[in-house]
């Protein structure tokens, strides 16, 4: 999973060596391309600090899109309302609650199931595993409507549970962790059974502590997926009670005039949690996406 992290370690030779003019040109070129690519995000952050939507639109076509004369945090203050037309404080908290429950629950449920499938003694494990791999191909988009009828029938519509329970356990993540578990040397499992530990003890105190990389991968992928959910919460939430921030931001577009200042501040708030995790675990983020790809 960490295949690409190692070769990407900072190269010894740097552009500061005098003979490497080509290197400097390359560095400048890459910097310019990177700046162009990231500029929409800069425009977003700068825009969220502007006084109102007229200012944002007036500046948008000029270089002032990258500059703000009198930065204000008013747009962010406007967000901290928990009732009213667009209670963004509430949406953000809802998203965080859904995120933490889904990721923590998902990591434990998927890893427990993967442990039993990899090292358990229950009969029929190979069949279950094959069924899970087959189910993995079903796209979320093609099951959301029947899922909505099921959720309505069991009385979970417009709830947090409706946004957490269906996405905690996932064939893909069980399979990812399973592939990690089966590579763990048998001696480790044997040593634990000799001590008389039951399956849960072995899973909890032997396997979990040495599986941090794959658990982090699952947490990151599941976290991003949960944070960005849109179609499902759009259908399952009818009130502000459990509505996540993604649907809240999208509702800016429903009306005739879009309050770009508020929409941009809300967007920045939606990005901040992801950015914090990204900065802290950048290397793991990238390798997570790779492993999801290679195994998929």
């Amino acid at each position, binding site marked *: 999973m960490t295949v690409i992290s190692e070769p990407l370690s900072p190269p010894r030779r740097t552009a500061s060596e005098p003979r490497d003019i080509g290197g400097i040109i*390359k560095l400048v070129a890459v910097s310019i391309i990177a700046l162009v690519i990231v500029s*929409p995000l800069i425009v977003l952050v700068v825009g969220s600090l502007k006084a109102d939507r007229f200012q944002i639109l007036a500046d948008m076509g000029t270089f002032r899109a990258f500059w703000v004369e009198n930065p204000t945090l008013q747009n962010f203050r406007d967000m901290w309302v928990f009732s009213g037309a667009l209670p963004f404080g509430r949406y953000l908290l809802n998203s965080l609650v859904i995120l933490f429950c889904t990721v923590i629950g998902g990591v434990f449920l998927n890893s*427990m199931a993967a442990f039993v499938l990899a090292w358990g003694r229950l009969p029929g494990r*190979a069949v279950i595993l094959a069924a899970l791999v087959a189910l993995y191909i079903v796209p979320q988009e093609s099951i959301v409507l029947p899922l*909505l009828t*099921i959720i309505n029938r069991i009385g979970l519509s417009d709830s947090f549970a409706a946004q957490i329970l269906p996405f905690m356990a996932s064939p893909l993540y069980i399979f990812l962790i399973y592939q990690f578990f089966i590579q763990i040397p048998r001696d480790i499992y044997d040593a634990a059974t000799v001590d008389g530990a039951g399956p849960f003890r072995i899973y909890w105190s032997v396997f979990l502590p040495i599986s941090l990389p794959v658990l982090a991968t699952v947490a990151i992928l599941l976290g991003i997926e949960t944070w960005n959910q849109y179609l499902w919460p759009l259908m399952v939430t009818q009130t502000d009670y459990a509505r996540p921030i993604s649907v809240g931001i999208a509702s800016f577009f429903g009306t005739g005039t879009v309050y770009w200042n508020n929409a941009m501040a809300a967007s920045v708030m939606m990005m901040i949690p992801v950015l914090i995790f990204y900065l802290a675990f950048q290397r793991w983020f990238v390798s997570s996406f790779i492993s999801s790809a290679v195994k998929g």
Partner: protein
Amino acid sequence: MSTETLTAGRHRRAPLWGGRFQELGMLLPSLALIAAFLLLPFLSSFRIALTNERLIPRPVPARFVGLDNFQKVLTDHDFWQALWNVARFTVMVLPVQCGFALAIALLLNQKLPFRNFFRGLFFLPAITSMVVVCVIWATLFQYPTGPFNQILGVVSFGMAQPIDWLGDPAWSMPAIVLLSAWQAYGFQMIVYLAGLQGISDSLYEAASLDGANRWQKFWHVTMPSLRQTHVFVLIITTIQAFKLFTQVNILTQGGPRGTTETLVHYMFSAGFVNQRLGLASAVAIILFFIVLAVSLVQRLVVRDRK
């Protein structure tokens, strides 16, 4: 996974029933959730597609209508337009997104200071939520004074009229393509980076000995070595493209004049907005078989190679 690894836990000492119950307790929660919220809805979509069920049940019970829904869908002009649009989107987004991803990967695969930093920067759009991307790009596409129209004016020396990117039937899909590619290329980029790093240096050295220039090395060493990566990237991007929904639902609602209507948006309108669950399920099943077919193509190509 060989049978060896699958039965890794077998023939240990005397099986403890307590242990088996524990195992059951560890496995069941996941299986129950997957059965209830993935398998059951998947199977029931096949049943619902054969009925005239509504999202909010009517007093009259739903009726079995055979293949009526499929017939309705397949004779609906809007459905074919949605399918055509998604195909159009795929054909446009594939070269833009994958080409750009490959170009950046090639750039980052060279000796370069701060390479990890740049890789982190180039990956930023990929962790940006599509809803946020819509907020940003809607302002970039502003008519008539947004940055894209300003650039257009400068490049054409003021000759070109400003374009209503999201509101003009001719430009709505290219605009959606552009913002989608910007958001998603980071993923293909890191896949290509991993692929590039798997190419042995000795291949390039051999090519150098044969007197190959950089361009020849790219076409005769890099590209053939990336064949597997290309297949994977194209398949994944195609599957993603067929699920196009969020940006279209937020920015254009399928308009103008149906030019950005997509399969998932068509399904969403039929099933959720118009409550016609049977009809929408038929579309969902068609979408599933398209995704399945594309994945099978991948399996075949990859197996072929091995």
